[in-house]
């Protein structure tokens, strides 16, 4: 797969030269393929948010490089805005960034900064609203009249409307109720399916990651602990647990069953797979 983002030996140190100096990201290298759905997971404070803010040039690496389509994004610091249009970043709790009179105008903020006008502008705003599941009549409301979940969608649409090649989401479902969570994730999945764009999803929820992504990066204390497909990562469930990370509920049950001597393969981490395994074991052990 052709890689769209390459991160090389990235280190970021906050508050250099003060007693509070600390590395939030240390010597991190990885690549993201075009069209890939990559999940990033890690303990609180492991440096996830710091890492992703380098990918669109909001933070400048203390050391190392970020390459977008093979070019160092800081090669021409004046053009960093173009990088931000190509790599869309949705922050944690993005609803606090809404400011316009209407939802429509707020979604249009990014595209207008890109220089889009007229029919082209209208098209990308409406497309983005549709992708996140906002209704037409909600576009003329004030963003402050929307519910929490709808605000979140409006803010997400504000980034999607710029039609970035890479979409980065920092805990998009944090603080939503289970139904809101699931529908928002379904919107994101649909976006990935339809547009084939690259997505990076930062999340605390292993279940959410396990169900959606092609590949997982596990971060621990400013470094990458694991990098692999979900089966690869979850087959090291015990290691994840000892690193203080959550694992999918199904993987947890699988471990418990394995401890009791049942023969469950290490790559079982979804509810469906676990169900299959349990049914298989029942057939083998209890002839009915």
């Amino acid at each position: 797969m052709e890689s769209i983002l390459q991160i090389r030996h990235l280190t970021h140190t906050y508050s250099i030269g003060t007693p509070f100096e600390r590395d939030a990201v240390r010597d991190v290298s990885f690549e993201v393929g075009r069209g890939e759905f990559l999940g990033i997971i890690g303990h609180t404070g492991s440096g996830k948010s710091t890492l992703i803010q380098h990918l669109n040039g909001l933070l400048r690496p203390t050391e190392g490089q970020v390459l977008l389509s093979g070019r160092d994004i800081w090669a021409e610091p004046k053009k960093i805005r173009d990088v931000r249009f190509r790599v869309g970043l949705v922050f944690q709790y993005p609803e606090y960034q809404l400011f316009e009179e209407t939802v429509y105008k707020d979604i249009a903020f990014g595209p207008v900064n890109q220089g889009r006008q007229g029919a082209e502008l209208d098209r990308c705003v409406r497309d983005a609203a549709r992708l996140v599941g906002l209704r037409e009549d909600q576009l003329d409301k004030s963003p402050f009249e929307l519910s929490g979940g709808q605000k979140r969608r409006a803010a997400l649409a504000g980034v999607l409307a710029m039609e970035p090649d890479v979409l980065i989401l920092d805990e998009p479902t944090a603080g939503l109720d289970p139904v809101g969570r699931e529908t928002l994730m379904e919107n994101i999945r649909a976006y990935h399916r339809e547009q084939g764009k690259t997505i990076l999803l930062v999340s605390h929820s292993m279940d959410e990651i396990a169900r959606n992504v092609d590949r997982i990066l596990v971060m621990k204390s400013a470094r990458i602990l694991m990098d692999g497909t979900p089966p690869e990562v979850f087959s090291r469930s015990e290691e994840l647990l000892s690193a203080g990370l959550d694992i999918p509920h199904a993987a947890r049950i699988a471990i418990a069953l394995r401890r009791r001597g049942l023969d469950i393969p290490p790559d079982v981490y979804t509810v469906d797979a676990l169900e299959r395994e349990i049914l298989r074991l029942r057939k083998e052990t209890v002839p009915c």
Partner: protein
Amino acid sequence: MLKDITLGQYFPGDTIAHRLDPRTKILLTTLYIVALFSANGFVSYAVMIACLILSVRLANVPPRAMVRGLRPVLFIIVFTAVLNLFFTPGGREFFRWGFLTVTETGIKTALFMVLRIMLLIMGTFLMTYTTSPISLTDALESLLNGLKRFRVPVHELSMMMSIALRFIPTLIEETDKIMSAQKARGADLEGGNLMQRAKAMIPILVPLFVSAFRRADELATAMECRCYHGGEGRTRLHVLRYQRRDYNALAIGGVICVCVFVLGRLGW
């Protein structure tokens, strides 16, 4: 980064200067300022400088940090120096160029004025270096307590001050976050003329105000839930009590202040 701006720049420590009651430190600073304004000769200024150096040593504050505190007022210092140097008549004349003259009195006044400003700034800075903002507001409330009789809402004012101090870092952090979020949508915060720059502030100010109001609202509710109803009958967790060292410090400060006052009168 915005976050690197610190307020009051408290240097945590455990020296005698840190352990003094914050009220003592406010009173001592006041005494210091009074003395500073009555000093007007080489001897009295020497005493003031000696006091400051001694206090800085006692507080274990790096001298570099003290000098750094002068940077924001550098312009005022230079301006005062130039003004006094060239425009004070009297005494022997060293130099004349058009309406600019440099006289003996001029040099002396300029020197003293600059010293006065520098000592004033460093003296008050030393207080904020060794006292956390929260204990400063506590001390102010306690010192101004007498004004309650004249219906000055002392408790409310100091509560407002503590809350404001508490939320400054939070708001700075929030501003940082909102700025990043809008930059991620291509907001251009640096370029453009004055009008464009002012307009570029809107996407930052609106969310900031919205969140500040939301926070204020939440805080008010939280305080009410914990039965806050103003200062009436409210007791404190940290009760301020003068210790022996406070009386000693105040006595020494008072004596020095009187001495400097007398020296100043004598023109030394």
